[in-house]
């Protein structure tokens, strides 16, 4: 299974490099495009974890919809007089140190924890993931409340955004 390992490391390198480019790029459109590369890398991670439905909707939602939304907002809020300027504020060294400490701590924790040093159990062959997911989402003793609440959340986001952003 060296091929899977190779794909995993390729995915990690591409995603992390793209993520670093997102937070360091001066040009916002470039940052948005790097964000899409990073999120596509995450989609590959989902495929490797055999959550193919999540992988596909990751691409659909982020690259299909959120990318367009972000780029439109960048176009809408560009101040023609002002150049991009320095992208970071004064406290960036503290932020970098904090993030590094968080990452090192988490990585050490995960690396030493015996529970996380496990391999994936085999998937049963007749696992119909999407059908099960749909059944869970609407069955009354599972996740029907989050399902309906999600639609109310989306409705609230839709109406709220229109109220805030829309002006003739």
């Amino acid at each position, binding site marked *: 299974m060296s091929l899977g390992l190779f794909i995993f490391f390729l995915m990690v390198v591409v995603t992390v490099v793209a993520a670093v480019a997102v937070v360091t790029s001066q040009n916002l459109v470039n940052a948005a495009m790097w964000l899409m590369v990073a999120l596509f890398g995450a989609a590959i991670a*989902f495929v490797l974890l055999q959550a193919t439905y999540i992988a596909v909707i990751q691409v659909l939602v982020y690259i299909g919809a959120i990318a367009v939304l972000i780029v439109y907002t960048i176009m809408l809020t560009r*101040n023609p007089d002002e150049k991009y300027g320095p992208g970071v504020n004064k406290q*960036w060294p503290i932020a970098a140190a904090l*993030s590094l400490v*968080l990452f090192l701590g988490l990585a050490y924790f*995960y*690396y030493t924890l015996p529970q996380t040093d496990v*391999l994936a159990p085999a998937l049963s062959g007749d696992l119909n993931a999407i059908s099960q*997911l749909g059944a869970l989402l609407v069955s009354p003793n599972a996740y029907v409340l989050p399902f309906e609440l999600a639609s109310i959340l989306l409705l609230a986001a839709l109406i709220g955004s229109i109220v*805030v952003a829309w002006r003739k």
Partner: protein
Amino acid sequence: MIPLSWYLIFAAALFSIGLYGVLARKNIIAILMSIELMLTAININFIAFWRYSLPGQMAGQVFAVIVFAVSASEVAVGLALVISLFRRVKLIAADEINLLKW
């Protein structure tokens, strides 16, 4: 094969990069993009735990789907606020908008 901890470390790396972006970037849109990175890291954790613990039950994937809904709502409202803010003060740098500070 790949152990669980590698995925978790990968997600932690993404999360930390996103955290740096949230804390250090000036532009609100850039901050929102960093939040997207953090939410994706969380989703990777959800799916990794689903795959390595109980792949027969789909609870992890349900949570991931709901995280999608939350992140979409968050980015929609956040960007709407950015547009509204820009209309008022022609400025979208987070640390220079201080009307509500006092």
